[in-house]
């Protein structure tokens, strides 16, 4: 290890081990019993890679006779840790915006490193065409992910309006922006010595990220977060090409494919294509659907009546949605689960893939409330059981239970796979009022004969049902 080649072989070996550990980390994530081992593998890989990098930096510094600035390396690692700890301790309901924010941070790192590499290259020995082209990929993808993720985080945190913001010619403006960025990138590859164009390219990528997420509504967030996850991974992989670092290429490819798979699952669960999510804001269709609405009679019930029906049931399926997260009702729902289970009622949860604001959102919230994970059922596994279900209790979910998706070709969500709740004997829907849901689409389920509307705040209503159940004769 006293030569440059020796130290490079050493770090290469460390990175090889870290790559293996990263792949194992994801492999072990496939089921809850092994998943925590996966975290350990990831952590060991990370510590090895960072430790090895710092060590190799020191060795090379000595061999090349340059002083290594350890003070700032460790200071920055320390500051990052201090910022990371509170970000790791956020409430479970805030996980979607935290995830969006961390996509922004990851892409920010990649974009900054790319920028530094560009100026070092331009002011030094120049940048070969191949390196320049991957560098452009890196900073364009990185840049648009930074601002796009910040916009998504802002919408999820509700500091920005959640409604899609659309205007005429939006797609034309977005595509033109993207095209300009690509043209500049091509020019820079051919003439790397045009440093005044570089900030323009990065600036356009940043603006493009904002424009891309502005027209996307809250209900499409699971797809968008997954897509941004994929972009963050791909930009890191591009950075691996720039630095000729295989560990980065592997980590970026894993993250990129993970985000891609999740966005495919999310789009399928909404029966929409990527391009439709990105370029066809839900807002316009929603307007016409809301206009067609008329006052129709619905049946409603009180907490006492609801408790009576639930206690008399033998099979109950709870369908949670984003409304449950908003009302913070998951702990009360767990109490309801406990009470009913004590009475011998079989209670399960039907989780639609796009329920909530990110993939798997509902599972995490219910797990936090101590609902055993083997009671959480995927859509395909539970849909066949609804005809044998006595009561389906819908809490804060709307579009994912809308039977119009199966029957009404004019519905904006026609073709979307939904939970077949209308096949159960009784359907109970906890809802604030008859206002159409987030996407503004009317739900014919509410007017069906077997449906009872439970009007009120999800948390308060469930808590009243629990009170009735525990105060009863058991």
């Amino acid at each position, binding site marked *: 290890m006293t030569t440059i080649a020796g130290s490079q072989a050493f770090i290469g070996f460390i990175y090889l081990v870290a790559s293996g550990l990263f792949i194992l980390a*994801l492999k072990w*994530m*496939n089921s*809850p019993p092994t998943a925590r081992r*996966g*975290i350990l593998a*990831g952590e060991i890989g*990370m510590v090895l890679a*960072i430790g090895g*990098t710092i060590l190799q*930096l020191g060795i090379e*510094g000595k061999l090349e006779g340059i002083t290594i*600035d*350890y003070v700032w390396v460790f200071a*920055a*690692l320390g500051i*990052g840790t201090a*910022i*990371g*700890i*509170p970000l*790791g*301790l956020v409430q*479970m309901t805030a996980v979607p915006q935290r*995830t969006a924010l*961390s996509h922004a941070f990851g892409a*920010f*790192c990649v974009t*900054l*490193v790319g920028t*530094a590499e560009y*100026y070092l290259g331009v002011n*030094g020995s120049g940048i*070969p065409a*191949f390196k320049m082209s991957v560098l452009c990929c890196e900073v364009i993808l990185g840049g648009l992910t930074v601002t796009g993720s910040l916009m998504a985080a802002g919408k999820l945190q509700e500091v920005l309006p959640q409604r899609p913001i659309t205007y005429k010619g939006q797609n034309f403006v977005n595509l033109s922006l993207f095209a300009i960025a690509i043209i500049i990138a091509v020019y820079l590859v051919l003439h790397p010595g045009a440093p005044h164009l570089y900030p323009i390219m990065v600036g356009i990528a940043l603006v493009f990220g904002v424009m891309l997420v502005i027209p996307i509504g809250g209900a499409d967030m699971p797809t968008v977060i997954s897509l941004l996850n994929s972009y963050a991974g791909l930009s*890191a*992989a591009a950075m691996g090409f720039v630095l*000729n670092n*295989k560990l*980065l*290429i592997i*980590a970026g*490819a*894993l*993250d990129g*494919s*993970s985000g891609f*798979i999740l966005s495919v699952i999310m789009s399928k669960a909404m029966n929409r294509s990527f391009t439709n999510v990105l370029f066809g804001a839900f807002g316009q269709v929603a307007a016409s659907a809301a206009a067609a609405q008329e006052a129709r009679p619905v049946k409603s019930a009180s907490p006492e009546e609801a408790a009576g029906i639930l206690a008399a049931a033998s099979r109950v399926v709870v369908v949670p949605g984003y409304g449950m997260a908003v009302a913070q009702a998951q702990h009360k729902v767990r109490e309801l689960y406990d009470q009913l289970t004590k009475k011998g009622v079989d209670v399960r949860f039907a989780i639609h893939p796009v329920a909530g604001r990110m*993939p*798997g*959102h509902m*599972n*995490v919230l219910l*797990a936090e409330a*101590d609902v*055993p*994970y*083997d*009671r*959480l059922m995927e859509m395909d596994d539970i849909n066949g059981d609804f005809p044998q279900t006595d009561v389906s209790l819908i809490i804060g979910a709307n579009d994912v239970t809308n039977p119009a998706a199966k029957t009404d070709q004019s519905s904006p969500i026609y073709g979307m796979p939904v939970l077949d709740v209308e096949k159960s004997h009784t359907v109970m829907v906890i809802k604030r009022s008859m206002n159409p849901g987030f996407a503004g689409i009317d739900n014919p389920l509410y007017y069906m004969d077997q449906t009872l509307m439970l009007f009120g705040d999800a948390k308060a209503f469930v808590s009243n049902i629990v009170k009735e159940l525990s105060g009863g004769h058991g």
Partner: protein
Amino acid sequence: MGTALIDGLFVFMLAGFIGFEVIKRISPLLHTPLMSITNALDAIAVVGAIVLVGRHESPLARILGILAVIAATSNIVGGFLITDRMLRMFKSSRPTKS
């Protein structure tokens, strides 16, 4: 540069296939923790930033590098921490609490 590119593309392609096969098998139950752990792993980009800070070849590279190390480290620490918190919550129905 030519062979390095081809080597890199080989690695990228194989890792992409492994990613597809491994992640396809992950239960939808764990999609949120999956996203937070891939986020933490992705922040391995920190090694590139550490080299920039350590070698401080220009004042600009140093400042950008420091900011990049901070951003990536916060993702590593926060990402592993929250993934661990989430996974600790997933319990089977065997031990019931009163």
